[in-house]
């Protein structure tokens, strides 16, 4: 991204302000806890597991003008 000088000064002020809020999380930095990236991790261990079965995506349902040689056509890219 690019910013004008005026935008950059505003950005610096606002980033500093929001960073003060975000910095509050640093209290957990050295906690002996595993980070949680997905709510359905092993801790919950529910029967609600993600289905690893049919994961493929078929393009057969796309209208003909949006598919070309098995790939999605993007008209505005000239494809």
């Amino acid at each position: 991204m690019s910013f004008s000088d005026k935008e950059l000064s505003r950005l610096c002020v606002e980033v500093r302000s929001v960073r003060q809020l975000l910095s509050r999380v640093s209290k957990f930095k050295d906690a002996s806890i595993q980070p949680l990236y997905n709510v359905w991790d092993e801790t919950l261990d529910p029967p609600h597991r993600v289905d690893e079965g049919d994961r493929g995506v078929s393009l057969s349902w796309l209208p003909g003008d949006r598919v070309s040689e098995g790939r999605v056509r993007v008209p505005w890219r000239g494809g």
Partner: protein
Amino acid sequence: MAAWGQGKRRKGESALARGLARQAVETLRLISEGSLTPTEHVSEVLEVVRDHEPQVRAYITLRSPERLEAEAKEVERRLRQGERLRLAGLLVAVKDNISTSFMPTTAGSRILSDYVPPYNATVVERVIREGGIVIGKTNMDEFAMGSTTELSAYWPTRNPWDLTRVPGGSSGGSAAALAYGGADLALGSDTGGSVRLPAAYTATVGLKPTYGLVSRYGLIPYANSLEQISPMARSVEDLALLLDVISGHDARDATSLSVKPDGIYPPSEPDLRRLRVCLLREMLEGSEEPIRDAIERTLDRLSSQGVEVDYDASIPSLSEALPIYYTIALAEAASNLARYDGKLYPFIVGGPTYTETASGTRAQGFGWEVKRRIVLGVMALSEGYRDEYYLAAARGRRIIRDEILKLTSRCFIAGSVSPVLPPRLGERITDPLKLYALDIYTVVANLAGVPSLALPVGFHEGLPIGMQVMGPPLSEPQLLSLGLLIEEVTGLRGLVAP
């Protein structure tokens, strides 16, 4: 002081508006009896849209009357052929970050102007399959980054209950359309409160489902680990119907759960002997007095019905929920928005090199709030800061998630949706911290992945007040039953703004 049942006093209300105050399920009944046709229903809703849309501006794109009428006739044909359609002829407003192959999907951003996805989101497919008619795409804060629907690249949406105020965000267009009667049902998305805040500000009902219960396939992503496509309606029963239609496993979404709880629709009468509600101190104390009054009064009424209410529950770590949420959300946003580089989507500011094209496209295509969030997200993920910000936030998230799961295993959690009544336009967007503070009570459910239902519990000087109730994962049927009971004790159901 909050006034009970204020929504029943509808000054200057037309017969048409009264008709649209009926629940979606009532409209369905009329259609199935043959006393109302889908075509007639389209006409009556379009009349209301024509009256209100110039002031409220809930929709970014509305479908033409001819197209809607053609779809209504198609529903009539399917009904004549004996198909049983669960949403036959109901008009559904869809937030503009949910992909539709038959209309533009802008996510409220200039960078996606003129973008028509090559496919429908799974939820849209399911709505159409059941005879629902998509009336239009609703306004939203750009890429769902906001809490007021003022940060749309197109225009701000106004609150139909008071046009000087915001409808909440980021699904404010969907909520506003419901609130004035411009749709029967609506779809929003909730990353940190984006359907519950608008529900609270517009006297409508919104549910953030359990993470993974509703497919995210076709949702323009903001923060994948937090967001869910979410149903919105004017009553709990209507919302349950829409949730039942859109939920369930989808192989196209890797985070979709392979199970779905029974009994979502119709929601059952609650078993009062087994209902326990805990009012969470951290989700009430910072709220304005009329909000606290309305929530405590609602809980008193539930208690008088036999519900066991604990008025003094506490999870001290929730004081850190807001910074944990924003650190994670901004990091995920920075990663997600990297795809808008001037190559994939129609909005392009061409330059002699890839870097100049990407830079120019992003500079002109993104709004200020989005740019700021990307910069902060990149910081949170960058070498030297990652441990201090992103990893630390992910650790804090586990603490909050575990505490919420522990408390919801013994009771439903009740609290405010917003600490304040609907703000006036412009009041919150000049200071990012003031804007982010609106989400202070709602981000908790997203961090924990649990369902949370927001619904009206009162009015103060004509402005709606909402309450949220949270349950354990996949407790939507019980949560909706509790919602029915809350509607019963407040008398606030199926409200339409005057």
